[in-house]
């Protein structure tokens, strides 16, 4: 008896469900609530992020061009798909000379997402010009940066602004001796890609810190490979300045070590904040000489410092390098200041020489505390 009741109940419930579904479907069909979107403005060949990624390479192949149709200054400079060329729709005619000569080249247009028409309109214009292989990545830049493992590429203007506002850590992924030491973007730290695993400790502890990698230009892969490694480490705000140092030199002129070191208030002294920053981020970029006696040095100094007691310095001055700044240190500035004036007296031609006018407490194991002298 009980089993019969249960069966009846299930049947009633099922019937109700069918009726409800039927009613809903009928209602929708009758009222036509579902809007039919006008998609006539869209280009006829749409691709997804996977398609774009499959055609990305460093350097970009000659038969593929990814084109950012958004405005240059407000959008492209702040972030774009690596390798993308900027041809804003508003400047299509003016910049059509940037398009490849070969009309069979694959052109992939994108802009600011599904509601953005710029890429579609550009694609249609390109089609009229005779290009035969055109696609539009309709979900565009927002989709690109939201996908795991992807990162944006930025322009020189953006990098310069970030440096001025102290908003990002700039990482030079090129080799130190042959490239970085000969010139680099100011404030950049050097983590050559080949030593990434060893030197990744130089990266900030906070995984949300913005990091921008660069290397030797559009044909250089080191910054891209480093960015991929940083993303794997968990960094959430990784960018690549793909045009790299060649573009930086072209835009802002050549930079070298002398720009990195900044003179302090007292004659011959190095700016204290800059010194702290160099020691923390890029100590190899300077030749650091601890001029205390050997027994004092043995108790602790900077990790990259070499020991030349001031009494023994004079005969060694001619051997000091002239391709990187020389900085003298001691606990108060007295002996290092003496060393500075000795170099100025003995080898006047050596221009990049400084001393640290500060109180430095060496605590052993490379630890130290630096305070301004009162």
């Amino acid at each position: 008896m009980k089993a019969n009741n249960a069966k009846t109940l299930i049947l009633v419930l099922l019937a109700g469900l069918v009726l409800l579904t039927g009613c809903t479907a009928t209602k929708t069909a009758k009222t036509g609530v579902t809007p039919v979107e006008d998609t006539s403005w869209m280009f006829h060949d749409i691709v997804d992020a996977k398609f774009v990624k499959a055609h990305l390479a460093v350097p970009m192949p000659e038969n593929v061009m990814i084109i950012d149709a958004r405005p240059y200054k407000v959008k492209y400079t702040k972030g774009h798909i690596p390798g993308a060329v900027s041809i804003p729709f508003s400047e299509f005619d003016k910049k059509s000379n940037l398009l490849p000569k070969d009309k069979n080249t694959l052109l992939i247009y994108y802009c600011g997402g599904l509601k953005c028409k710029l890429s579609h309109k550009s694609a249609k214009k390109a089609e009229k010009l005779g290009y035969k292989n055109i696609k539009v990545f309709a979900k565009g830049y927002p989709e690109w940066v939201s996908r795991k493992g992807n990162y944006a590429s930025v322009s020189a203007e953006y990098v310069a602004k970030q440096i001025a506002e102290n908003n990002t850590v700039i990482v030079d992924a090129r080799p130190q001796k042959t490239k970085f030491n000969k010139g680099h973007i100011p404030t950049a730290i050097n983590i050559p890609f080949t030593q990434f695993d060893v030197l990744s400790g130089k990266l900030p502890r906070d995984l949300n810190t913005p990091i921008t990698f660069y290397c030797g230009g559009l044909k250089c892969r080191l910054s891209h490979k480093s960015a991929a490694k940083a993303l794997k480490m968990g960094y959430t705000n990784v960018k690549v300045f793909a045009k790299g140092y060649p573009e930086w030199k072209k835009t802002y002129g050549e930079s070298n070590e002398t720009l990195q070191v900044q003179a302090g208030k007292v004659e011959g002294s190095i700016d204290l904040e800059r010194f702290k920053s160099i020691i923390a981020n890029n100590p190899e970029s300077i030749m650091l000489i601890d001029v205390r006696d050997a027994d004092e040095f043995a108790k602790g100094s900077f990790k990259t410092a070499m020991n030349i007691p001031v009494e023994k310095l004079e005969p060694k001055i001619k051997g000091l390098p002239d391709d990187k700044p020389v900085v003298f240190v001691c606990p108060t500035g007295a002996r290092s200041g003496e060393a500075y004036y000795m170099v100025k007296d003995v080898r006047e031609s050596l221009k990049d020489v400084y001393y640290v006018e500060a109180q430095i407490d060496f605590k052993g194991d490379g630890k130290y505390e630096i305070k301004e002298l009162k």
Partner: protein
Amino acid sequence: MFKKSIITIMVFIFTIVSFSMAFASEGPDGNKRKGKYTYRKVYKACAATGEVESKTPKMSPADKTMKQWKEIFKNKKFDEFGCKGNWAELSDKDILDIYSYFYHHAADSPTPAKCQ
């Protein structure tokens, strides 16, 4: 009455502190770092001529008080240093730098220094 006393004490303290600060900031304004190098250079040159045995200077800033150094440099009484010829070759700027080094590292200064 009590209020008046408080104000008097405050004015007195303020005067003492201001005076001390003014006194503390007194002293030569030469380049003491350069002065140290120049002073040692004098003795190095002097030792090279054989006038003194050691190139390490025999006099250190901590050998005298600020007042004593002030007296010596004001009156240019450098006989005690020896190496008279080398001292005679120094410019006024060099002497001011050396004076600054001695004064700011005198025995009664916050950072007395010895020439090792």
